[in-house]
C-alpha cells in the first residue's frame, strides 16, 4: 500500500513538474527573446526561429544605445534613467505616507463626515487616470516640463488608500487600545504601533505604485518635451520609432528599461509575493 502510494505520488509530482516546465517555457519565451535579441545583430532578431538562437552575441547594441543617447539634443540615457528613478521613488515614498495616513483615518478614527468622504474615495478609485489626463494637462500647464508635474498627480491614490483601509480594518484592535491607555494619540499610535505591524500592506502598495510609476507612458508624453526631465519608457517609444528600426538596439533599450525592476523583484520577491498576495487575500 505505501509503496503503491509512493509510486502514485511520484507520478503525480512528475506530471506536476511536466506541466509547470511547459508553462514556464511558454511564459519565459518572450523574455528570453528580448534578452537574447538585445545581444544579437538587428538582422537576426526578426528572422523566424533564428531569433531564438544564441549566435553572434555581443554588447554592441548596448553600446549603440548609450552612444545614440549621449548629447544634449537627444538627451542622455542615464539622465532618463535617473528621472524615472527619482519620479518613482518620490511617488512611492510620498504615496506610502499620504495614503497610509488616510487609510488609517478612515478605518480607525471616528470623525465627522468620514463615511461620506470615504464613499467619494471609492468612487474615485474607478476613475481611469487616462480619462482625466487631458483636462489635468490643461490645468497643469504652468508646470510643463518639470519633474514635479510627473510626480504630483500620482502621490495621492484612491486605490492605495483603499488597500491600507482594508488592511488596517483587519488588524486586531487590542494593541492599539493598549497604546491609547499608554497615552499615545492617533499619530503616535499610527507611527509606533500600526506601521510596524503593517509591513505587508506597505510593501504591497510600494510595489504596485513603483510598477505603475515606472511604466508611465501617456502622461509624460503629454507634459514633457525637454529631454532633461523625460522618463525612460517614453524614450523607448521615441527610440523604437527611429528609422530604420534597429530591433537589436530597441531590445537592448527594453532590457535596460526592465532590468532595474527585474533585479529589485528578484531580490525582494519573497516579501513581494507574500505581501501582494497577503494583503489582497485579507482585503
Amino acid at each position, binding site marked *: 500500500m505505501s509503496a503503491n502510494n509512493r509510486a502514485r505520488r511520484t507520478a503525480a509530482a512528475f506530471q506536476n513538474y511536466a506541466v509547470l516546465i511547459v508553462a514556464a517555457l511558454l511564459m519565459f519565451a518572450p523574455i528570453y527573446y528580448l534578452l537574447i535579441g538585445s545581444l544579437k545583430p538587428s538582422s537576426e532578431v526578426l528572422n523566424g526561429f533564428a531569433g531564438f538562437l544564441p549566435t553572434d552575441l555581443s554588447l554592441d547594441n548596448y553600446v549603440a544605445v548609450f552612444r545614440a543617447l549621449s548629447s544634449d539634443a537627444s538627451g542622455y540615457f542615464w539622465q532618463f534613467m535617473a528621472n524615472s528613478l527619482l519620479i518613482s521613488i518620490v511617488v512611492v515614498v510620498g504615496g506610502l505616507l499620504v495614503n497610509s495616513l488616510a487609510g488609517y483615518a478612515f478605518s480607525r478614527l471616528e470623525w465627522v463626515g468620514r463615511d461620506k468622504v470615504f464613499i467619494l474615495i471609492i468612487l474615485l*478609485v474607478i476613475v481611469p487616470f487616462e480619462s482625466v489626463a487631458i483636462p489635468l494637462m490643461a490645468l497643469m500647464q504652468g508646470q510643463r516640463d518639470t519633474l514635479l508635474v510627473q510626480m504630483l498627480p500620482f502621490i495621492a491614490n484612491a486605490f492605495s488608500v483603499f488597500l491600507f483601509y482594508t488592511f488596517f480594518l483587519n488588524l486586531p484592535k487590542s494593541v492599539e487600545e493598549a497604546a491609547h491607555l499608554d497615552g499615545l494619540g492617533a499619530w503616535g499610535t499610527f507611527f509606533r504601533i500600526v506601521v510596524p505591524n503593517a509591513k505587508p500592506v506597505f510593501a504591497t502598495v510600494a510595489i504596485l505604485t513603483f510598477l505603475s510609476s515606472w511604466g508611465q507612458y501617456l502622461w509624460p508624453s503629454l507634459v514633457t518635451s525637454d529631454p532633461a526631465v523625460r522618463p525612460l519608457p517614453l524614450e523607448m517609444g521615441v527610440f523604437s520609432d527611429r528609422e530604420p528600426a534597429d*530591433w537589436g538596439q530597441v531590445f537592448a533599450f527594453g532590457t535596460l528599461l526592465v532590468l532595474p525592476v527585474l533585479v529589485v523583484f528578484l531580490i525582494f520577491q519573497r516579501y513581494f509575493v507574500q505581501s501582494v498576495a497577503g494583503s489582497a*487575500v485579507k482585503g
Partner: protein
Amino acid sequence: MASPVSTAIPSSQLTVRKPRFRWRDTRDGVLMSAPAIIGLIAFVAVPFITAIVLSLYNVQADMAREPRFWGFTHYIRLFTDPILSGTFLRSLLNNLVFALVVIPVQTGLALVLAVLLNRKLRGMKFFRTFFFMPVVFPMALVAVIWRLILERGDDGLLNASVSVITGGLVPAHDWLGSSATALGSVILLSIWQGVGFQMVILLAALQEIPEERYEAARLDRANGWQQFRHITIPGIRNTLIFVTLLTTILAFRVYDQVYILIRTAGANEEATQTLLYTGTKAIFSENNLGRASAISVVLFVIIVIITLVQRGLLRQRSEG
C-alpha cells in the same frame, strides 16, 4: 501595469458602523486624511468634473473658437450618429469582448498555475518567479516584444513556430492586421503580462486553506476533483471575487498596448480600438475635446454600472 483598482469592498465594511464621534478623532482624522483627499480632489476630482463640463460643450482642444454650449449633443451622437456610433460602439464591444475573454481565461489559467504551485514539491518558488516575471514589464515594452513575435511575415516568431509545428502546411498569418485575430492577439499579450499577478494572489489564498480539511476529505475518499470542488473553491471564494472584479475594471482601462500596436505595428484599428483609445484619439487626432470628455464620462458610468451589477449578483448569490 496600470494601477489596479478594486471595488471588492466586503459589504460588511460599507455598512455604516455606529459612529462614536470624538473631537480629537475628528481633528486627527481630518489632518491625517487631508493630504490624500486634497491630492485626489486636485488631481482626479477636479479634472474629472472639468471633463463632465467640457463634454457638454462644442469645444476644441486649442480653444481657437469660443466654446459653445451643446447640451447632450456629444452623447447623442456617440450613441446615434450613423458613423460616430459605429466607432464608439465597436470600441465598447471590443472592451466587452476583452473583458469576457480575459476574465475567465486569465483567472482560470492563474488558478491552474496556482494549484500546481501549491503542491509541496521542491522548486515551486523557482517556477513562481518565472510566472510572475512578466508582471514587472511595462506595457510599452510588452507591445514591442509581441509585435515582433506576431509579425505577419514568415520571419515572425509565431508564424515560424506554426510553420515548424505544421510542417509548413499553414501559411504565415497577419495576426495583428487581420480583423479576425487582432483582438485575440492583444488579449494574448495582455494575459501573458497579467496572469502572474492573479496567480500570486490566488496562490496565497490557497495557502490559507488549512491542510486538515484536505486530510479529512481524503479520509472520506474524496478524489482530487471533489477536493478541488468542495474545499479549494469555497476556500478561495472571496479572493476569486476580488480577482474577477479587479480584472473586469482593468479590462475597461486597456490603452497602452492598443495605442502602440495600432500606431506602430499596423494592428487592425477597428478590431482593437478600445474606449480609451477612441477617446484619446478624438483629442490627439481631431482636437475634439468635447467628444473626448464625453467618452471619458461614458466610460466612467459603464464601470460604475458593471461594478454595481457585479456587486448585486455576488451579494444575491452569497445570500442565496
